């Protein structure tokens, strides 16, 4: 019996260690494959110049337009998702009655379960032509359309985590607020939201990580032009879609191949820091709740 206990302990330990091994394995391999491009092309030139022409005779690997593309659609999607997500969280946890909540909540959760390729299909086949006609644009495959769909995809993440944060605010706070004569809206706006702000912030930064890492949807809807957008209606080529579209056909060991891993490093660093921020905020929230 004791032996079995011990064995199980080590198996569980091994499982836990696996994540660490995988993480370091991934970091090591993308840095190993991506590092050469920094040496060949230069870090500054790679990060801060335009001109993504990886297969041209005089190839250039400036990813500034790709980085800009990623940030434009990510920020755009958050502009869509934050009001919708936080708004629905407030409604679900503060305003809706038990019945409404039980009906509405599964729908928000279902939205989270839709594969991103389906969002992409929807965007490509319906939303893009609609946006094109609505604004009389040359093409509907642009940063604006992408932001909207990406935003819809991020809503459930922001909504469910914000809702947890809001629900975990002690009842006493609300009662104290009502006792002071505040109405419902004042209580939500001045007491509940400020108290839940770390949790809401964590949900937003998680949504940011989800949006910037999304690949299939942006590959299908963003238009793929490696250009620094002049307006929100310009097509863009986010980093993820460049990797996904080109890796399959880049010759292993070529500069292009290294450059795609270079993009992966940039993406990894960005998501690493956004996760770090999320985690530290989450810790803070948990500590505050224990007190």
């Amino acid at each position: 019996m004791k032996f079995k206990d011990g064995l199980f302990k080590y198996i569980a330990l091994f499982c836990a260690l696996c994540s660490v091994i995988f993480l370091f394995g991934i970091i090591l391999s993308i840095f190993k494959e991506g590092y050469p491009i920094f040496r060949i092309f230069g870090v500054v030139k790679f990060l801060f110049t335009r001109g993504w022409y990886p297969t041209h005779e005089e190839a250039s690997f400036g990813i500034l337009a790709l980085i800009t593309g990623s940030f434009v659609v990510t920020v755009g999607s958050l502009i869509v998702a934050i009001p919708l997500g936080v708004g629905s969280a407030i409604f679900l946890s503060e305003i809706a009655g038990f019945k409404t909540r039980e009906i509405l909540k599964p729908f928000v959760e279902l939205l989270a379960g839709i594969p991103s390729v389906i969002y992409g299909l929807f965007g490509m086949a319906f939303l893009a032509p609609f946006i094109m006609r609505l604004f009389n644009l040359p093409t509907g495959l642009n940063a604006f359309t992408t932001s909207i769909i990406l935003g819809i995809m991020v809503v459930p993440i922001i909504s469910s985590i914000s809702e947890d944060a809001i629900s975990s605010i002690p009842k006493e706070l609300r009662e104290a607020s009502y006792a002071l004569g505040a109405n419902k809206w004042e209580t939500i706006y001045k007491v509940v939201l400020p108290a839940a702000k770390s949790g809401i912030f964590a949900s937003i930064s998680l949504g940011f990580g989800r949006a910037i890492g999304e690949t299939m949807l942006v590959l299908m809807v963003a238009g793929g032009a490696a250009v620094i957008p002049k307006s929100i209606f310009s097509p863009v080529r986010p980093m993820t879609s460049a990797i996904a579209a080109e890796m399959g056909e880049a010759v292993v060991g070529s500069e292009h191949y290294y450059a795609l891993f270079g993009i992966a490093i940039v993406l990894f660093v960005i998501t690493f820091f956004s996760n770090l921020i999320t985690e530290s905020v989450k810790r803070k929230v948990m500590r505050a709740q224990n007190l």
Partner: protein
Amino acid sequence: MKTFMKILVAGLLLVSSTSLFASKNRITMSGSTTVLPVAQKCAEAFMDINPKINISVRGGGSGVGIASLIAKSVDIGLSSRAIKDKELATAKQKGVNAVDNIIALDGLAVVVHPQNPMTEITIKTIKDIYTGKITNWKALGGPDREIVAISRDVASGTFEVFKEKVLGGDKTKEDALMLASNKAVATTVQETPGGIGYIGLGYLSEGVKALKVEGVVPSNKTVQDGTYKLARPLYMLTNGTPKGLVKEYIDFVLSASGQKLVSETGYVPLQ
């Protein structure tokens, strides 16, 4: 589709590695990603008929295919361009007699929205559109509408033909849309009144209008007789004239059923 192919290739590799001992029943090939889908489809069909034979197909690009053939690490080098004199010389040095077997033709149709009044275009005009010199259909006698230049990803085989036959040494303009598949280009052109795109001949459909290029209608016939300019042959290179299993496989690709797979993949059969 691409992932599906990768899974297939991975599966094939797995299957073929388990039967290392039966290496006499094995054909290996690598090279151009343009030729790869044809080679893959034909390999599957060929293995269906001859279950004892294993064929492994890998990508890597035309250069890799030719280099592997010269290094004798594959039986067939897949290439979407003719072998260069330099490569031929290296091959001779290593005692490899590289023979290029043309197995299919690859043609590009230039397509616009069905409502676009244009019916033909010159290669120079296509180049001017994609390099950003012409940006409005008005300049070409059409309506006052911005041109949306739609291209394939720069790593694709389709872009490679376009680069070779149209762009020459020039770069596409930065704001050209870069899409991930022929199908996506066709769909987007179909839905974009100001759009222009290029797709493999096999992807032509009712929803888009193919333009005459230099006065020639793109069709299997004009590609086969060489009058249509945006086309090129696809090769399977072998060491010496094909013999044994390799000959059987290439004969299959050239047979009626092989050529049917060629057109299913979006390319132009030889006859």
